C-alpha cells in the first residue's frame, strides 16, 4: 500500500497544477435534495393561492361582462355594477397578494444560510471540494431562479385577474376602475412581481448569513422587505420619469395624478377650490350645488375657467406602465445581484 501511494504521488501533484473546480452542475442535485421539501411546500401554497385566484377571477370576469353588457335602463344593472365593484375587496384590492414576495423571500431565502449556520452543517458543506463560496453562489442563484420563475408565472395570473379593473372606457357606468400605477396593483403585474420576489429572496439570503439563526433572519427579512416596498411605493416610484403636465381637465382615470393646481396669467393661483380666493368662490357660488351641499367639481371648474383660471395637472399616463415596470424591475434586479454578491463575498472573506 505504501509503495502504491508513493507511485501515485507524483501524478497527483501534476494533476493539481491543472486542478479544476468541481463542476457547477453537481449542485443541481444538492439543491434539489436539500430544498425539495421546502420548495414543495412553497409550490403547494402558491398552487392553492393560484387556484383560489383563478376561481375568484372567473367570477370576477363574469361579473364584469354582466355589468358592462347590462342595459343601463334595466333595474338590475345597478346591482350588477355594485357586485363587480365589491369583488375588488376579495383580495383587499390587491394588498393581500403583495405579501407573497415577502413570504417567499423570508421562508425560502432566509433559511438557506441561516439553517446551515444555526445547525453547524456549514462546517460540513463549506469544507467539501466544491468550496464554500461556490456552494453559496450556486445555492442562492439556483433557488433565486426557481422562485423568480414561479413568481413570474403567478403574476401572469394576477394580470389576468385584474384586467377588468384596468379596462378603461366604462366610467359612465361608474364601474370601479384602478390605475395600473395604483400602489396595490403596480407590483402585482408585469415584471415587478417577479423582481420583488427576487429581491425578497436576496434580502433573506444576506439576512440569514449575518444573523445566523433562522427565525430572527425571517423576521428581519420581512421587516427589511416591508420597509423597502413602502419607501419604493410612496417615495421612489413617482420619480422614475418626469411627470407630464396638462391643462386638460379630463385626465383619464387610469393616469397616476400627483397634484392639481390653478394658474392665472401663467402664475400659480391656488390648489383646490377650498384655497380659491374668496371673491371667486362667491362669484361661482350661484352655480348648482352637488350632493352633500358642496359645489360639484365639474361645474365649479367650468366657472373658474370662465374667470380666466387654468387647471394644471401633473401626472404619469397609463402608457408609461411598461417603462415604469422595466425601471423598477431593472433596479430591483441590480439590487438583488448586489445583495447576492455581497453574501457570497462575506462567505468568501470569512471562509478564506
Amino acid at each position, binding site marked *: 500500500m505504501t509503495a502504491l501511494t508513493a507511485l501515485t504521488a507524483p501524478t497527483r501533484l501534476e494533476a493539481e497544477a491543472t486542478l479544476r473546480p468541481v463542476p457547477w452542475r453537481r449542485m443541481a442535485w444538492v439543491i434539489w435534495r436539500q430544498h425539495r421539501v421546502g420548495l414543495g411546500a412553497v409550490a403547494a401554497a402558491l398552487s392553492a393561492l393560484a387556484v383560489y385566484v383563478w376561481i375568484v377571477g372567473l367570477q370576477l370576469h363574469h361579473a364584469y361582462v354582466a355589468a358592462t353588457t347590462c342595459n343601463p335602463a334595466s333595474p338590475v344593472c345597478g346591482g350588477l355594477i355594485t357586485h363587480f365593484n365589491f369583488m375588488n375587496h376579495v383580495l383587499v384590492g390587491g394588498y393581500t397578494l403583495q405579501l407573497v414576495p415577502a413570504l417567499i423571500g423570508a421562508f425560502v431565502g432566509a433559511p438557506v444560510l441561516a439553517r446551515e449556520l444555526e445547525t453547524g452543517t456549514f462546517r460540513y458543506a463549506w469544507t467539501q*471540494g466544491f468550496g464554500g463560496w461556490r456552494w453559496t453562489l450556486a445555492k442562492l442563484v439556483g433557488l433565486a431562479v426557481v422562485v423568480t420563475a414561479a413568481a413570474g408565472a403567478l403574476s401572469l395570473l394576477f394580470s389576468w385577474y385584474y384586467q377588468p379593473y384596468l379596462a378603461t372606457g366604462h366610467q359612465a357606468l361608474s364601474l370601479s376602475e384602478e390605475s395600473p400605477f395604483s400602489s396595490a396593483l403596480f407590483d402585482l403585474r408585469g415584471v415587478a412581481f417577479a423582481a420583488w420576489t427576487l429581491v425578497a429572496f436576496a434580502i433573506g439570503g444576506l439576512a440569514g448569513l449575518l444573523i445566523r439563526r433562522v427565525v430572527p433572519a425571517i423576521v428581519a427579512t420581512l421587516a427589511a422587505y416591508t420597509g423597502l416596498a413602502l419607501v419604493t411605493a410612496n417615495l421612489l416610484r413617482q420619480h422614475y420619469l418626469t411627470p407630464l403636465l396638462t391643462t386638460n381637465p379630463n385626465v383619464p382615470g387610469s393616469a397616476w395624478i400627483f397634484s392639481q393646481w390653478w394658474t392665472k396669467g401663467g402664475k400659480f393661483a391656488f390648489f383646490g377650490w377650498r384655497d380659491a380666493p374668496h371673491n371667486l368662490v362667491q362669484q361661482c357660488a350661484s352655480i348648482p350645488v352637488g350632493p352633500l351641499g358642496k359645489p360639484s367639481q365639474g361645474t365649479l371648474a367650468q366657472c373658474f375657467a370662465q374667470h380666466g383660471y387654468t387647471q394644471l395637472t401633473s401626472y404619469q399616463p397609463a402608457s408609461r406602465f411598461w417603462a415604469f415596470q422595466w425601471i423598477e424591475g431593472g433596479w430591483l434586479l441590480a439590487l438583488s445581484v448586489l445583495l447576492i454578491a455581497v453574501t457570497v463575498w462575506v462567505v468568501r472573506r470569512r471562509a*478564506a
Partner: protein
Amino acid sequence: MKVIEAAGLGKRFGSTWALRECTLAIPDGHVAALVGPNGAGKTTLLNLAVGLAAPSAGDLSVLGGRRPGSPAALDGIAFVAQDTPLYKNLSAADMLHLTRNLNRHFDQGYAEGRLGELGIPLKRKAGKLSGGQQAQLALSLALARRPRLLVLDEPVAMLDPLARHDFMATVLTAAADDGVSVLLSSHVLAELERVADYLILMSQGRVQLAGEVDDLLASHRMLTGPTAEAGNYAERPVVHVRRAEAQAHLLVRATADDPIPRGWEAHPVGLEELALAYLREPGAAAMPGPARRPEAEASEVTK
C-alpha cells in the same frame, strides 16, 4: 511536505485573540494531536486550516504551500467538525450522494463497505443514528474522499468509550493503510498515548510545545529527589515542579545522557504526564534556553 505550516499566525474575534503568534510546521505522515484546555485556540487553528475562517495575522499554508480554502486544499483535506454536523433529515445514502456530488473524488464502494461493516443502515436518516454512528458516518464520508489530510475537531468528546475506541481504530487504520495524515484536537489525554505520534500543546491561544512524540519523550525526564533540594536544580530547564512532603518531582528538559544530581533519580515520562505538566504551566512555552524565541524553540523540537 508539511501538511500545515504557520508563521506568526493569529486570529482575533473582536478584541480577543483566540490564537496568537502561532508558528508551527507539522510534517506529513503523522497522527498529530492538538491538545489544550478549552479556549486554548484548538478549534480556531483547525478552522483556519480547513478554510472556515481567515487569519487576522500571519501566514498559513496547508499540504505543502497551498492556501487554505483553495481548490487544491479543499480537495486534499477532509474535515470532521466538532459534534459531527450532518443533515439530520437526510438518510445515510443521501449523505453519501451529497458528498460524492460535492467532491472530485469519492470512493462510494469504500463508504458503503464501511457503513455495512458498522451496521449503519443506508436508509436511516442521519438524525436517527446514535451518536457513535453519526460520528462514524461523518468519518466515513471524510475518508471516502480519499484525503491527504484528515482534520478532526474533538472527534470523540461526545462518544462512549466503545464508540470512541472504534472511531479511533478507523482513523488509525486509514493513517496506517492509506498514508492519510491526521490532525485531531482533543482534550481526552488518555486517548493520545495510543494514537498520536506527533503532539502540539496549546494554551491561551499560543503553541506551547510541538514535536514528534518520541522526540518529546526522549528530551524530557522526570527527576525525583528530596523536596528540600528541588530549588537547587539548575542544570537543565525545569518545566514543572510537583512537591510532595518528602520528595519532589521535576519535569525537566533533559535526555537520558544528561547528568543526574546526586541523590536524585531520573525516569522517562509518559505522554499524558508530559502534556499535563505543560498544561499546568501555561508559561512554560517560554522554556528557558539560550536566547531562543519561545515559538522557535517549540518547533525545533521536531528536528
